[in-house]
């Protein structure tokens, strides 16, 4: 369904006196996402996983390579097709509080994409908003409220409702559960799983938390410093992830065990070099 072909992207950082340092955000990355699957991309911060999401949704352009959606090159299409693609692809951000315009009522927030893409009557939109709110576990009355009246979990449900309102094929989930409480994370993941089944969606799940990936995704790739370093067809098979970067991510998962156990863990020492 979606294919990345040798995609590279560099960012430049100026160093004064016209000197520039390039940072490889994505370095010759290729992979393919099957329709109806949940494809996870993991990596530490700075590994290039957010850039990948940005490119796919069209917020940025790659330096080289192609990104194909159902065989169409995303960066070689006319405006009409692009508008259609915008309907097919939606995104949900990590920071749900700033992903919603705080001056708009929730019903207008949810209706916004519909007003662009679907030619519903105003009553039609009203009905649809109500239906969507109920689908994600909220009530019709919530549509009259503003974003600051909701908790993070509820707001994330609203952004999900907004994303599915125009019947997209693909949704990019950019660290959607990271700033939420543990149990709320589970409820959002469950909601997303249900919607995927009902609406036949394809997910691109971007995360740095392998544990949630394991719970939620089907396939996984690991990014490290802009390079695709590891791939597992089934997330249950974490053993297949052998690259040091993948191992680091796995080890960083703090196991729940009593304190005594950690005593024999070797403590690494040294200076952490600034990434800035």
């Amino acid at each position, binding site marked *: 369904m979606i294919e990345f072909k040798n995609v590279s992207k560099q960012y430049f950082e100026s160093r004064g006196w016209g000197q520039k340092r390039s940072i490889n955000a994505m370095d010759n990355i290729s992979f393919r996402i099957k329709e109806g699957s949940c494809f996870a991309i993991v990596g530490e911060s700075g590994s290039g996983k957010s850039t990948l999401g940005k490119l796919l949704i069209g917020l940025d352009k790659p330096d080289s390579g192609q990104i194909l959606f159902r065989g169409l090159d995303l960066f070689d299409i006319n405006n009409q097709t692009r508008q259609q693609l915008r309907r097919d692809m939606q995104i949900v951000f990590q920071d749900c509080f700033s992903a919603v315009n705080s001056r708009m009522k929730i019903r207008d927030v949810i209706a916004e994409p519909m007003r662009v893409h679907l030619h519903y009557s105003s009553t039609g939109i009203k009905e649809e908003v109500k239906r969507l709110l109920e689908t994600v576990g909220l009530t019709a009355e919530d549509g009259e409220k503003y974003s600051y009246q909701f908790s993070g979990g509820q707001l994330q449900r609203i952004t999900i409702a907004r994303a599915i309102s125009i019947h997209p094929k693909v949704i990019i989930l950019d660290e959607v559960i990271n700033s939420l409480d543990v149990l709320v994370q589970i409820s959002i993941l469950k909601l997303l799983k249900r919607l995927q089944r009902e609406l036949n969606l394809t997910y691109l799940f971007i995360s740095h938390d392998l544990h949630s990936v394991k719970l939620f995704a089907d396939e996984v790739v690991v990014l490290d410093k802009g390079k695709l370093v590891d791939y597992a067809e089934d997330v249950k098979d974490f053993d297949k992830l052998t690259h040091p970067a993948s191992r*680091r991510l796995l080890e960083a998962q703090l196991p729940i065990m009593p304190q005594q156990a950690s005593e024999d863990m070797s403590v690494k020492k040294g200076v*952490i070099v*600034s990434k800035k």
Partner: protein
Amino acid sequence: MLEVKNLSVFVQRDTEEIQVVQDISFQVPKGKIVGIVGESGSGKSMICTTILQLFRESRRVSGKVLFQGESLLAKNKEEMRKLRGKEIALIMQNPMAMFNPMLSIGDHFIETIQAHVNISKKEAKQKALEQLSRYQLPEENILQKYPHELSGGMLQRIMIAMAVSHRPSLLVADEPTTALDTMTQLRILDELLEYQQEAGTSMLIVSHDLGVIAKLADDLIVMRRGLIVEYGPASLVLEQPLHSYTQALLAVKKENSTLEQLVDHYEEPMLGSLVEWKPGYWVRQ
């Protein structure tokens, strides 16, 4: 070392007063680490700031906070100031925001040292360097660096080095690793643990992440909506949690759990009283 008795905290919001911490008692014994875990809004951070009396909004506090036998709540501003940083040191979350962007690391370090010891700037700087080298941050020019030139992990480590520079008898860590990368998080926790064991300091650590608490704590407190749900030795609580809420939290972190099995919300009211199940192990019914 630190004893909290029947602590309740009320916060003024608009017109009503909300009780954010309800009748909480626990103690941090000398040389031990006590961890408090709970989701956002459970009141766990309130406890830290109440102990140190560091808050901006109007709060009403009842109960007792005893530090080395003295009531902290009875102390005046200047007495509290002298305790803060010297006897009770605080490590806070989001180090990027905690450092004044206009002051260099050296400035921060020196003013911290000078706050409690009457020494010259030069000596303070010397002390800062010693302290930094002890924590594997020996580069001299780190003192000249400004906060935004350093990574969050680095700043957090500097924060720890600063916190322990007066060898406090109690270290309060409020979400010390929350804003950090997973890798860095691990390293910071190791360092904290190492310092605690070496210095024998008592420590109160607060986090929403069970993993963090599990790694450090001797005693563990699970909080929800201002109440203690479960309180006991970490080994016991983690291995065989008694309360269903704790069980739900732990289940998420289990290696082999699947999404379907997990509880996704916990709405049961907590009306029951806290009972001592075993000596030193309390659970709410």
